[in-house]
């Protein structure tokens, strides 16, 4: 795993403990469009009677695949190799990058056209290619914009979600010398014109893989812009990158996943293009690089395993109230949102990313929308448990002592009473404190404290009045006038 580009400490969102709210530019756009997507997703799901059956099936297929990766990957390799492809394995980012650089060198590659691949973001591949003197061009429109701007994607499906048309107009005039415009059609035309040249010039195309079918040795790539089709077929050489978890047992399982992925990711019934690549086209070369890069760490933790079932639809990002406010960069690495908070600690280490599972109100919306039924909210709590017990930024002595005191105080009614009396006193006197610190300061930054009631705690009331509460005649339909106290 390469450490050099992991900047979790510097992730603005995670630095924000009690300081200002981090909002990426255009966050209102992000909030609204993410919310719109979620609403649309819920309507779609509700309109399909078999939606839950699909989710259940997809989840079980993935669970089976994850239990049988050793066999399925070998089967996939055997079948796709039989049709002329070369399969390479990589334990980590360095190995994968080395494979790509070796292939590029062997074929004297100068320009690479890339269609969208989150794995290549994990590898920081563009930087590596750049350093080796190979020009890599992102051809997915969103990725293209983000690359031109020198940024990271802010969303795994819609990478440039944070850029407005005006931002794009400025970007094109600054980087490409085009006249400024905010018209969507004109902007798209500009990108198309520039990208066409690169497609024709490229000596190598790269892509991700959405699904790899073991029984037929097929890779499936879905897209909407046609750039993946051009990237994988125009140059004489195609290198596909996939994580080990992308393999599914059979091509017969594919339709369920396509149904779920398009509807969840973009609200479409099916993506505009679905490419099935069964092997190398005669006269051309196909490499498939299969990457671990920390994924076996996830397999090793039974409570987290199902997070590898993720099909990268991005729905959990859209549904997440935290993601909607802070955007993708705040998470510090490649995968944002709830799924990022769950897999990043495994992929880069809980010692670096232990804060991420805490970036959630545990509202559970992510789990509700996940098309493959990943138990995201519960996995977040599981990782919190790990983060406070293993070396991580969240393993803090102050917290430990606080919670041990809490645990002691909550382990007997007398202690409880005494502790609660102190809390009440604290809340009562807080308004006279010159300044509020720690958690108190965090609360009163934008909220009033609850009023300490004039009446005693419930348990005291009960002692006095509990015995007098006599159940009235078992409930029958009453009219409001019947009630007397």
């Amino acid at each position, binding site marked *: 795993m390469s450490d050099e580009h992991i900047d979790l400490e510097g992730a603005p969102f995670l630095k924000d403990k009690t300081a200002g709210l981090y*909002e990426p530019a255009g966050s209102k756009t992000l909030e609204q469009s993410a919310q719109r997507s979620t609403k649309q997703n819920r309507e779609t799901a509700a309109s399909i009677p078999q939606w839950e059956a699909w989710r259940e099936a997809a989840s079980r297929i993935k669970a089976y695949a994850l239990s049988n990766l050793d066999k399925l990957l070998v089967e996939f390799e055997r079948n796709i190799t039989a049709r002329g492809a070369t399969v390479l394995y990589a334990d980590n980012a360095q190995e994968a990058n080395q494979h790509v650089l070796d292939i590029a060198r062997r074929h004297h590659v100068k320009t690479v056209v890339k269609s969208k691949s989150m794995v290549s973001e994990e590898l920081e591949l563009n930087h590596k290619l750049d350093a080796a003197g190979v020009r890599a061009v992102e051809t997915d429109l969103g990725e293209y914009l983000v690359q031109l701007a020198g940024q990271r994607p802010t969303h795994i499906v819609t990478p440039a979600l944070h850029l407005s048309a005006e931002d794009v107009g400025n970007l094109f005039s600054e980087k490409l010398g085009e006249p400024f415009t905010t018209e969507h059609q004109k902007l798209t035309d500009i990108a198309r014109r520039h990208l066409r040249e690169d497609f024709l010039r490229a000596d190598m195309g790269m892509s991700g893989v959405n699904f790899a079918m073991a029984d037929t040795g097929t890779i499936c790539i879905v897209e909407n812009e046609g750039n993946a089709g051009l990237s994988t077929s125009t140059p004489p050489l195609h290198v596909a990158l996939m994580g080990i978890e992308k393999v599914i047992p059979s091509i017969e399982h594919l339709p369920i996943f396509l149904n779920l992925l398009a509807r969840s990711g973009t609200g479409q019934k099916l993506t505009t293009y679905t490419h099935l690549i069964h092997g190398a086209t005669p006269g051309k070369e196909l490499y498939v690089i299969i990457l671990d890069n920390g994924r076996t760490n996830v397999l090793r933790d039974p409570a987290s395993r199902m997070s590898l079932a993720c099909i990268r639809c991005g729905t959990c990002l859209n549904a997440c109230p935290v993601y909607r406010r802070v955007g993708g960069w705040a998470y510090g690495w490649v995968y944002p949102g709830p799924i990022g908070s769950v897999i990043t600690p495994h992929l880069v280490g809980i010692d670096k990313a232990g804060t991420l599972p805490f970036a959630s109100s545990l509202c559970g919306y992510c789990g509700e929308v996940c098309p493959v039924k990943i138990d995201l*909210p519960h996995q977040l709590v599981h990782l919190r448990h790990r983060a406070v017990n293993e070396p991580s930024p969240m393993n803090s002595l102050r917290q430990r002592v606080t919670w041990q005191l809490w645990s002691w105080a909550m382990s007997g009614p007398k202690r409880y009473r005494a502790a609660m009396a102190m809390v009440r006193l604290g809340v009562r006197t807080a308004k006279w404190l010159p300044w509020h610190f720690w958690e108190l300061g965090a609360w009163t930054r*934008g909220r009033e404290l609850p009023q300490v009631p004039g009446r005693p705690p419930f*348990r005291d009331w009960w*002692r006095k009045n509990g015995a007098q509460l006599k*159940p009235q005649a*078992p409930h029958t339909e009453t009219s*409001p006038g019947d009630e007397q106290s």
Partner: protein
Amino acid sequence: MIVPRQSSPPQWDYPKYRPGEPVALFIPCYIDQFYPQVGEATARLLTRLGVPVVFPEGQTCCGQPAFNSGYWEEARRVVRRFCDTFAVHRWIVCPSGSCAAMCRVFFGHVDPDDRIVEVGRRVFELSEFLVEAMGVTDTGATFPHKVTLHVGCHSRRELGVIDPPLRLLESVRGISYCELADAEDCCGFGGTFSVKMPGTSLAIGRTKAENILRTGADVVVSPDISCLMHVHGIMQRDPAMKHVRAMHLVEVLVAEGDGQK
């Protein structure tokens, strides 16, 4: 073979409450201390409906704050104490969806012991107990106000309690119900999240507060007063939102009918 751990809409096989069976009240710590009227209303309402109510005095907390913060070992001790306290009670009713979810859904994570899980399963959120276990939707209340409803995410997604609060409110005399936009979105409280990431928590809360204001309701009601502690706390800071009152659902369900205001 991996056992899939999945997220699905919870579907409980609710046991049916038989008249005369005693119910143990679990009154969460923050209600006990800061909203005692909610506990009182719960006790009065159940009594009025003919339910014999007991309050096991050894109770403290369900362990959720420590559990959600990752301190499961510290939570375990409190969870075990909860189970000892409530071991003999068949029905345990709690006026908080979040605490009920801790008991019913999360006890097994803290301590997979059968006894612990089994006690946790006997805990019901008040509105689901009334509607699903007792079959009561009309509590005989009168509350002539404009009311909107916020159902907390633990009630909604961990317990699947979406319908019961609504059906109870519908039967209240004189009430004028105002639908809340984006009701399925979180309020941003999230327990310790509210003080760990206060900027984000407040930003989420402000959206909820704006939506509540937009309904035109005078009162926002919830089966989870903890959400309202946060949202209403935000609203109190804003002169334009200050007039909206926050109440627990049960306070509305006993309104006027038994002499309470």
